[in-house]
């Protein structure tokens, strides 16, 4: 299941819903992304007041659904969930939730990491950080590309 929303989410309630009435699930893995209060800048770490997440409505949902479908092709999943927020978020706020459930832990853990790695390089979201020197668009990181490519090589 895919959700793109401005509102926060309740992790406990989402996990309960994801696993309800499915006794084949033996393991649930999850990743939660949070807003930090510091970000790397050209002059070391800079404090962040908040960030605004922009996205491409339509393509975002399409890409997230494709990524989720790919995870379901690669691993025997009983359930999966991606929630990604947009709009203005403050340090400590939740940004993203990825959760995968399977009969056994390996499929759940691996597919969860796959989903967040692919999401970071394929889903059309952009972060604008509020720094003391003004709004700063976050640059994509080579390490994220490398993490996503690792999964491509294994397929």
């Amino acid at each position, binding site marked *: 299941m895919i959700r793109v929303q401005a509102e926060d989410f309740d992790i406990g309630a989402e996990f309960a819903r994801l696993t309800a009435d499915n006794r084949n699930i033996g393991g649930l893995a999850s990743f939660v992304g949070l807003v930090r209060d510091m970000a790397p800048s050209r002059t070391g770490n800079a404090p962040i007041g908040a960030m605004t997440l922009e996205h*491409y409505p339509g393509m975002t949902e399409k890409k997230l659904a494709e990524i989720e479908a790919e995870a379901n092709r690669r691993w025997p999943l009983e359930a999966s969930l991606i929630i990604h927020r947009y709009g203005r978020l403050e340090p400590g706020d939740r940004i993203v939730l990825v959760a995968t459930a399977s009969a056994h832990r390996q499929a759940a853990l691996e597919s969860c990491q796959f989903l967040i790695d692919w999401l970071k390089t394929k889903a059309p979201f*952009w972060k604008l950080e509020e720094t003391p020197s003004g709004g700063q668009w976050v640059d994509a990181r080579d390490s994220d590309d490398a993490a996503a490519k690792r999964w491509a090589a294994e397929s």
Partner: protein
Amino acid sequence: MKILYFAWLKGKIGTAEEEVQPPASVTTVAALLDWLEARGAGYAAALANREVVRVAVNQEYAGPDHRVAQGDEIALFPPVTGG
């Protein structure tokens, strides 16, 4: 065709969305970017470094040789940074 701009491309070009009518000779993503770049200083600044411009045609990632046509929805944006 409809062009959408996101993140800093939107800021440099000064609009989030516009309807454009490029000449018939513009049939690929690369040709469209060349045509857009010549439209003004903001466009030129936004498209100066093609390495950091990603393109989607009808909501699918597209390379420079991908075909573009009337009625397409084209989006230009920097490398994504979600998650």
